[in-house]
């Protein structure tokens, strides 16, 4: 028995100790420990919702520790013992419903389930509960449990859940898929969205190799290259490429990725992908609407393009590829474009584009491209970058234009400019050229020679140093005014010569225009005024002399006319008394006055001959005066020259006989006809034959030869006389010429015979010439055209 009591006592002791331990544990625990009792046991067969309702109705806190009181913001456990379940839990909170339902369904044994409660201040509190219910006779009578405060943890979780949800929603909305690639293990993680973008089911597995195969063959190399580049430099890449879905449809994707390096080696890559079919469609659609634009661009040799500033990404373009010699299928990227730019222009082009990207201002550049056939073409590029609020270029648009023709024209202009300069440099005046900005752009070589200054010294505004300080203000004023008004000007001012001396110059400036009418500035020339002045003076003097000569000439003409008139008048007046003398001496000699002795006859004969000579001279003077006054009109008719010459020789035969001279007349035909003025021509022949007789010594021969050809009649009168000196020949047919020779004083003569004869032959359109040898004889040749 005692053994039984001891045993019992020991059990009691053990029990007591255990209770103490329990009380100590409860007291010192950080967790809340509680015991709920129900006023009315709850039937466990009821539905959970019914049981929960009864719990809130009958359950009250029977026992708890201080830690629990603290969880509700209270200091003592006394403040919460006796409180109803509804004082702790928010009855309507679905989480609490879930919590209690789970407790019931777990047959009143539950651990690690959260409840949503309020503390004494009304703050939200989350507790993680573990609890056990006591069921007696099919009724829940009480529950034991512990709880820990998880409010902070829950908040973090919730924030995390919220952000994750937002991200996933954002990605979903932007149709962006995520991927992560563990380079070391080769494990590739794809988000659902990414699989969707690649046309895959969520359950489909993905590998890098499979990913590569899904990329459009034409884009594959480009994409792999971009990924490999990033794996080397760790930089971000963006690339547009096509994806072939398992259903063989083709879709556009914009991929972005970046590798993370460790010790220069890639360990991980993270990236996104985005479907851009819609944008591409829009592009295609806009392409359709831009057909007309394309046509317009084609006809104007223009192209246009738009870049979204993504390195390596294709640049949308229209007409551009054609202009730069690219195939339509070639992908246009900045990199591919750079390859076709002429090497000499590449740096300049890049610099220009960079500047445009940084400034957002429009740019214009002319550069050359090299076509695949090696031909070089000129392009005019214009464009502008659009910047975001951070000043980063996000979009760039531009146009391109083929300007081969214009460049060709420009080269021609340059050549013509070179020609102009060449010419200007050899011009005898100083020439300058200025632009519309009033800056001097050119001085010719004579200018440089004159001023002795280098071209670059005078260009721009440098020329001011050449102008005399006293004249400079006026020159600048007049010149500026001329440019502003685009008017010509003339100004005289002093320019410093290379020797330092200032020279007066006359400057004439005129506006110049391009063929299109664009004002190009002025061009001007300078001449030394002092030189002009002396030239003018010389010219004036010459003009005066000229005028004087002209006056003299007129005077002489008038004088000559009055002289002719005088000769005519004088001859008439002289002739009458001489004729009187002739008549009276004639009457005496011819016996009208009775018989005369020999001496008387000799004396009167001499007087008569002398008077005759005077009359002849008067006749000659009159004839010449007539011919000179142009009053002689030929009266031509067909005449037998043989007969005419026979008659003339016959008339003078007495004279020849007297001097014992022989005459020979050579002619082949019996008759030689020519259309001449027989009276005048007779006088010409009389004169020539008479001369031949006069100048030929006694006993010599005179030969007349008449020859007719198809073109002309040629008449030669040759004598064996004294001849004519060579130096006298040119004077022979001049007026009042009497060649000095031993016989001239004896034969006399007016010196007008040959002059008149030549005039008459000329009126017949013929010629009279002479060949002569001194002391051998002369030969006069008359040629008259038939």
């Amino acid at each position, binding site marked *: 028995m005692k053994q039984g009591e001891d045993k019992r006592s020991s059990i009691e002791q053990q029990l007591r100790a255990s209770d103490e331990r329990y009380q100590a544990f409860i007291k010192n625990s950080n967790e809340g420990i509680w015991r709920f009792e129900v006023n009315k046991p709850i039937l466990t067969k009821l539905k959970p919702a019914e049981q929960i309702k009864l719990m809130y109705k009958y359950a009250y806190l029977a026992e708890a520790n201080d830690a629990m009181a603290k969880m509700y913001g209270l200091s003592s456990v006394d403040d919460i013992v006796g409180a109803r379940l509804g004082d702790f839990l928010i009855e309507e909170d679905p989480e609490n419903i879930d919590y209690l339902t789970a407790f019931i369904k777990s047959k009143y044994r539950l651990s690690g389930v959260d409840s949503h409660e309020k503390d004494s201040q009304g703050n939200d509190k989350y507790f993680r509960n573990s609890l056990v219910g006591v069921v007696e006779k099919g009724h829940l009578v009480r529950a034991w449990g512990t709880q820990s405060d998880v409010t902070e943890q829950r908040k973090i979780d919730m924030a995390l859940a919220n952000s994750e949800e937002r991200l996933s929603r954002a990605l979903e909305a932007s149709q962006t898929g995520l991927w992560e690639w563990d380079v070391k293990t080769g494990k590739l993680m794809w988000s659902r969205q990414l699989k969707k973008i690649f046309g895959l089911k969520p359950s489909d597995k993905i590998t890098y190799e499979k990913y590569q195969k899904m990329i459009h063959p034409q884009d594959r190399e480009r994409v792999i290259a971009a990924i490999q580049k990033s794996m080397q430099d760790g930089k971000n890449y963006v690339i547009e490429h096509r994806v072939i879905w398992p259903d063989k449809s083709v879709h556009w994707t914009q991929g972005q990725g970046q590798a993370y390096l460790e010790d220069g080696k890639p360990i991980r890559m993270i990236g996104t992908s985005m479907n851009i079919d819609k944008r591409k469609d829009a592009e295609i659609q806009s392409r359709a609407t831009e057909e007309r634009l394309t046509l317009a661009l084609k006809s104007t040799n223009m192209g246009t393009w738009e870049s979204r500033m993504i390195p390596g990404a294709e640049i949308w373009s229209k007409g551009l590829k054609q202009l730069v010699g690219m195939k339509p299928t070639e992908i246009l990227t900045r990199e591919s474009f750079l390859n076709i730019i002429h090497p000499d222009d590449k740096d300049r082009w890049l610099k220009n584009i960079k500047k445009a990207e940084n400034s957002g201002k429009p740019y214009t550049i002319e550069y050359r491209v090299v076509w695949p056939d090696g031909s070089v073409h000129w392009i005019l590029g214009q464009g502008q970058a659009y910047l975001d609020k951070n000043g980063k270029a996000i979009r760039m648009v531009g146009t391109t234009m083929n300007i081969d023709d214009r460049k060709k024209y420009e080269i021609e202009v340059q050549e013509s400019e070179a020609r102009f300069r060449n010419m200007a440099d050899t011009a005898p005046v100083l020439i300058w050229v200025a632009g519309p900005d009033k800056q001097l752009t050119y001085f010719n070589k004579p200018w440089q020679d004159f001023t002795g200054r280098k071209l670059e010294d005078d260009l721009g505004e440098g020329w001011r140093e050449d102008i005399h300080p006293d004249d400079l203000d006026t020159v600048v004023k007049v010149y500026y005014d001329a440019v502003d008004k685009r008017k010509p000007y003339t100004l005289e001012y002093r320019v410093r010569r290379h020797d330092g001396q200032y020279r007066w110059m006359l400057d004439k400036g005129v506006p110049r225009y391009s063929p299109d009418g664009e004002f190009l500035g002025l061009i001007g020339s300078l001449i030394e005024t002092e030189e002009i002045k002396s030239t003018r003076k010389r010219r004036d003097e010459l003009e005066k002399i000229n005028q004087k000569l002209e006056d003299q000439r007129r005077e002489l003409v008038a004088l000559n006319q009055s002289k002719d008139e005088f000769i005519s008048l004088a001859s008439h007046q002289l*002739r*009458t008394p*001489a*004729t*009187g003398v*002739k*008549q009276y001496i004639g*009457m005496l000699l011819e016996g009208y006055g009775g018989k005369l002795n020999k001496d008387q006859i000799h004396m009167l004969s001499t007087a008569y001959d002398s008077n005759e000579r005077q009359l002849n001279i008067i006749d000659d003077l009159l004839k010449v005066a007539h011919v000179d006054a142009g009053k002689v*009109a030929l009266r031509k008719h067909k005449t037998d020259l043989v007969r005419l010459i026979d008659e003339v020789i016959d008339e003078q035969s007495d004279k020849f006989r007297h001097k014992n001279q022989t005459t020979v007349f050579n002619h082949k035909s019996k008759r030689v006809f020519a259309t001449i003025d027989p009276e005048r021509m007779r006088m010409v022949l009389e004169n020539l034959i008479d001369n031949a007789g006069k100048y030929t010594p006694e006993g010599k021969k005179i030969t007349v030869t008449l020859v007719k050809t198809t073109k002309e009649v040629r008449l030669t009168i040759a004598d064996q006389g004294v001849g004519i000196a060579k130096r006298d020949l040119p004077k022979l047919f001049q007026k009042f010429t009497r060649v000095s020779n031993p016989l001239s004083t004896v034969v006399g003569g007016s010196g007008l015979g040959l002059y008149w004869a030549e005039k008459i032959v000329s009126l017949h359109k013929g010629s009279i010439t002479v060949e002569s040898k001194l002391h051998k004889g002369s030969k006069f040749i008359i040629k008259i055209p038939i």
Partner: protein
Amino acid sequence: MHTILIVEDEQILREAYRQILTHEGYKVAMAHNGKVALVELEKHKPDLILLDMLMPEMDGLQFLKAARLTVLYPKVKVIAFSNLSDQQKLDELKILGVTDNILKSSLSPKQLANTCKNLLK
């Protein structure tokens, strides 16, 4: 006996011709210009007229036009004394009744007499 009218303004020549022709046996009438010649023509109805062309008052051409010799005195012979070299004018003279044109300084007294004699045969 033939009558010759001498029309000459130069008295010295007129007188020379008168002496020569009278000596040759002609009846001679004289005038010193065209106007007087017209009167003498009417009065003497000469067989030959020696007509100087250059005269004051009325010259030889004017006389010929006024006298209308070819109509009124178709038989009269006229020797014109002129140095005209203009053939047209010479032709005109012939139309007006001039028989011959002679440069008066070219004839000696005997040649003048012979010329008259030949014309009046």
